[in-house]
């Protein structure tokens, strides 16, 4: 500790000044013109439980992305093998993303290995066994590439979600990765949680697929799906009865064009029914592809499929070269707007699942703030009265430090942009109870020293010195315990841990340093014979 009282008083004054500076933005909403340049702008940041909002933890289903990639790789592998006259049959991709095929000639395995080394460096042979004079081979992606793909998938998902949230217009969203394949999304002050969830969680994979007219839909529904085709359903609402039903379609599996070829998407109101539709504009390459596809398939039906659901399947009347298309299908204006946003922001590379959702309405948040503040004020008053009655003037000194403690905690929260949550307010209140402990320790020591007949100055000094080591011990253990709460990452509990830790650190300053400065000031400037303690 510094010995010079002046220096210590200056330190205390500087701390108070800093607290005031950092707290001004929180308590004064409009700072007049010449001052707002110099003062910090950060208010105390309130947690979602106090200001209302939505907290989501999403899991990116990276396995699905792997599967999709292996599906595409299998197609390429098939073509490469055929080009190089390697004979095989039954090439399949399984659920876990491995490709199996049967090589019909025993020598073909060397050819396969050679081709894989040259053209598919990411693949490796997982196992092979002889079968019918040939070989049954299963191929999987190598570990390193799989991890890389997982990482890229999560990064891409994060980017896409950030894009969507930005376009939706939410202030101060927080979107951060968590662990290997999770994403945490915090949206303060959101009014329609269902809509936000829909916007974030939708994969939004847009595909254009031809309707398979050569085969019978009835036959396919009975189970005989022709190779290269698939069944998809579309939603239809009967305009007169308002009932919703689903309509089956038989589509070619291969997507001719996807949402990746879009340049932009926006909402338009159709002239005929005044219904909102989403109009699409393709990128230059997309427009060329769309032109070719429509030219080749005049009179056939082209289905617009979003996340596996057929939105419409209009007949291509003529070649379309403008690079424009439209999705219609019973949208409300909001739905159309959100769909345009997700199409602009792009599809998620893999589906996401919501693992955790916590939504607090703004009214509950403001109730919590009010109750938290009331509890803090009443708790503080109880402690302050107690100290005043029990230790009289010395209690007043401790109380000064206590009030300074509360303001310093808030100032530190504001300065470091930490988040104040409801348990955080509780932590602040508890710190008040604990911070005063340091003073009780000191005061009890001083009383003991006074009882042995020491002078006021000497009793003060020995009291502080003796209690100091104990105070350090109690603070360190308190901080250690709180640190384990930080393990829980985000959310209200982290707020509790953060305010408790800040509170303990601050109380070392206020309860020990500041009170000693006050005592020293009084004992040096007034001739105090008897301490009011």
């Amino acid at each position, binding site marked *: 500790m510094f010995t010079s009282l002046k220096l210590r008083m200056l330190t205390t004054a500087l701390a108070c000044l800093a607290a005031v500076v950092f707290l001004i933005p929180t308590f004064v909403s409009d700072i007049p013109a010449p001052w707002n340049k110099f003062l910090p702008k950060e208010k105390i940041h309130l947690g979602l439980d106090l200001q209302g909002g939505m907290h989501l933890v999403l*899991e990116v289903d990276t396995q699905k992305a792997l599967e999709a990639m292996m599906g595409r790789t299998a197609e390429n592998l098939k073509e490469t093998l055929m080009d190089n006259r390697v004979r095989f049959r039954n090439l399949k991709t399984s659920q876990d993303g491995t490709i199996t095929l049967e090589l019909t000639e025993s020598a073909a395995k060397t050819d396969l290995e050679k081709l894989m080394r040259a053209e598919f460096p990411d693949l490796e042979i997982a196992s092979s066994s002889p079968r019918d004079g040939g070989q049954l081979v299963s191929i999987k992606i190598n570990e390193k590439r799989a991890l890389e793909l997982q990482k890229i998938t999560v990064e891409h998902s994060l980017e896409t979600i950030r894009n969507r949230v930005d376009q939706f217009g939410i202030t101060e969203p927080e979107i951060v990765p968590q662990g290997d394949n999770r994403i945490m999304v915090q949206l303060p002050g959101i009014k329609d*949680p*269902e809509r936000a969830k829909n916007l974030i969680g939708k994969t939004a994979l847009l595909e254009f697929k031809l309707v398979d007219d050569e085969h019978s839909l009835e036959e396919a529904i009975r189970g005989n799906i022709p190779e290269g085709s698939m069944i998809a359903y579309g939603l239809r609402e009967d305009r007169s009865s308002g009932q919703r039903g689903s309509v089956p379609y038989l589509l070619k599996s291969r997507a001719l064009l996807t949402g990746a070829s879009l340049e932009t998407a926006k909402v338009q109101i159709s002239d005929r029914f005044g219904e909102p539709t989403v109009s699409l504009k393709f990128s230059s390459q997309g427009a060329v592809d769309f032109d070719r596809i429509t030219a080749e398939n005049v009179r056939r039906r082209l289905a617009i499929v979003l996340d596996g659901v057929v939105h419409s399947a209009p007949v291509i009347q003529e070649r379309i070269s403008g690079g424009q298309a439209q999705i219609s299908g019973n949208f409300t204006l909001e739905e159309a707007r959100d769909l345009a946003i997700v199409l602009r922001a792009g599809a998620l590379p893999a589906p996401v*699942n*919501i*693992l*955790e*959702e*916590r*939504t*607090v*309405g703004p009214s*509950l948040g403001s*109730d*919590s703030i009010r*109750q*938290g503040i*009331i*509890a803090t004020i*009443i*708790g503080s008053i*109880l*402690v302050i009265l*107690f*100290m005043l*009655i*029990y*230790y*009289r003037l010395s209690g007043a000194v401790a109380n000064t430090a206590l009030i300074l403690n509360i303001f310093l905690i808030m100032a530190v929260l504001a300065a470091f942009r930490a988040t104040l949550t409801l*348990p955080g307010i*509780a932590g602040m*209140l*508890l710190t*008040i*109870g*604990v911070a*005063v*402990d340091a003073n*009780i*320790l000191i005061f*009890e020591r001083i*009383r*003991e020293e006074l009882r042995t007949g020491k002078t006021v100055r000497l009793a003060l000094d020995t009291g502080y010195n003796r209690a100091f080591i*104990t105070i350090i*011990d*109690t603070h*360190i*253990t*308190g901080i*250690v*315990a*709180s640190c*384990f*709460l930080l393990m*829980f990452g985000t959310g209200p*509990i982290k707020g*509790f*841990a953060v305010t*408790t830790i800040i509170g303990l650190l601050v109380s070392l300053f206020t309860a020990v340093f500041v009170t000693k400065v006050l005592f020293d000031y009084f004992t040096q400037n007034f001739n105090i014979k008897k301490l009011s*303690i």
Partner: protein
Amino acid sequence: MMELIKPGINIDFVGKLKYALVLSSILIIIGIGSIIYHGGLNPGIDFAGGTIIQIKFQKDVSADQIRGALQSTKLASSIIQQFGAKEFLIRTHESFSDQQMLAANVQEPLTSAFNQDYEIRRVEVVGSKVGADFTRKAIIAVILSWIAILIYVAWRFEFRYAMGGILALIHDTLIVIGAISVMNMEFTISILAAVIFVIGFSINDTIVTLDRIKEIVKKHSKQKLSDIINSAINQTLSRTILTSLTVFFTVLALYIFGGAVIRDFAFALLIGTVVGTYSTIYIACTSVLFFEKLQPVKTKRTR
């Protein structure tokens, strides 16, 4: 000078160790018995996964009316609990996270039963995967905090002192968790935070008394250890009780005025402050004596 505890006080705490052990055993057995009786702790959705929906009505309604309204939905078998005036919690152990869940299972049936006279104030959905993660982290956090404090206290004092402190921590943790079970409250993350806070608070008291034991040992190394412990507890008794009182005041304010969201948390803290103070006096310090008997070679005169 106002004094709750007179300076000359000399209570024979060590001599009453037997009664304390009986009392602690009874409290812990009641707690564990209650946990067994309830078939384990009653885990909140943070740990078990599930859904909580908090709804505030403008008029007085009863839980039965709400149950009636939700009869034909997926929430038909959920627990409906009053939560403050005109306010209810609906909880279920299923975690609904699909997008239409609220609309179909809550908003539509409630609107048809109560018109628009209600407000959904909070929705929390935790999937079982996240719940399992939280459970694992919770157990690790509690045990690590014990170990970290054990290491610190062993480093600052002596191992036998540290063992006493840890014994007190385990004692406090068990009693607080037992009390939560007896009250049939849900064990949530906030309760866990309270438990860890109590761990920090309880060791706090213990350290102050241990410091004093150490100090007296240094001064009067000839005294019997049981006498030293007794006088250390007595000398710090006034501080122990005063600090517990101030913390108790603040927690009480939190319990009464902090609102329903934080009430269980405050309850765990209330129990924790009382038990923490008691265990400091009776468990932590007196058990130093017990560990001394186990470790007679390392005499108290080494420090």
